[in-house]
């Protein structure tokens, strides 16, 4: 059990990933630009972490066209929400344990 949880914590090791998951926990969906603005990261940084989370099936990506521009919208999967909640609980437990 502890190994599973530690494995989860590796998935969320980067601050950017923490940020992405946090925002998607409280917003049903968010578009790429709003995400980038709120997190204040570069395109490359955001794209790579989002893609990693997508591979883990923690977030879902949907692309569409608005006129000529592409619109990329992210949302958290049920699995992603569960994993992130567990991670938050894990952090809280560690915090209590170390105090």
């Amino acid at each position, binding site marked *: 059990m502890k190994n599973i949880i530690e494995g989860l914590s590796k998935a969320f090791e980067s601050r950017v990933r923490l*940020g992405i998951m946090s925002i998607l926990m*409280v917003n049903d969906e968010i578009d790429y630009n709003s995400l980038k603005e709120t997190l204040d990261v570069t395109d490359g940084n955001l794209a790579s972490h989002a893609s990693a989370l997508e591979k883990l099936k923690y977030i879902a990506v949907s692309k569409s066209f608005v006129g000529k521009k592409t619109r990329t919208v992210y949302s958290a999967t049920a699995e992603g929400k569960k994993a992130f909640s567990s991670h938050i609980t894990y952090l809280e437990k560690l915090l209590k344990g*170390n105090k």
Partner: protein
Amino acid sequence: MYCKALRMMPESNQQLQDLQYIKTMMDRSSRFDTITSLAWVFAGIIAFGGAAYAYLQLNQSGGYEAVVMSRDYGTFRPILFIGAVVFLIAVVACVSITLIRLRAVKGKLLQRPILRLSVNLMLPIFAGACLLYALHQLSGFEYFAPVSLLMYGLGLFNAGRYSIDAMRYLGIACMALGTISILLPDTGYWTWVAGFGLGNLLFGIYQYRKTGF
């Protein structure tokens, strides 16, 4: 013992920082975009009601142009009063409707997204009120309707970022109406009705068809 505590501290610091970061991100990205369309429709109807009553008052006193150009506070006071009452009723109604909805989902009224929205909406309105106070001492009352439209529109445009995106369009529409009545002060009454009455009402209907509440 001391060394052990020192060794432990950086780790708990990391968890604490992570949790704080999570909370900050959640907070920063929260928008209050579930104001019910009922609130907008209600605001529009109240504005229409006030405008209808004002129409009767204005007819008794010689028409819109005469009243606002008159610089006579006594003649204008009933109109000002109607405007203030409409505003107050609309605010109270919106807050009440929001409270009722929040109670159903056990949410708090004083949560940050709502406060952010309120501040962003109210500051331009407050600025407008101050401007009107200064203005009427110089000029009379012909700018009351235009300035209130401009400031309401500005408030909506600004607050749209913290709430429903489409609010920005209503804001622009009100500002456009305000601009028209600044340039053509005679249109003040009808632009006021169009902006505060029709604008809010149509927006509420649009929201209802889009989101269902």
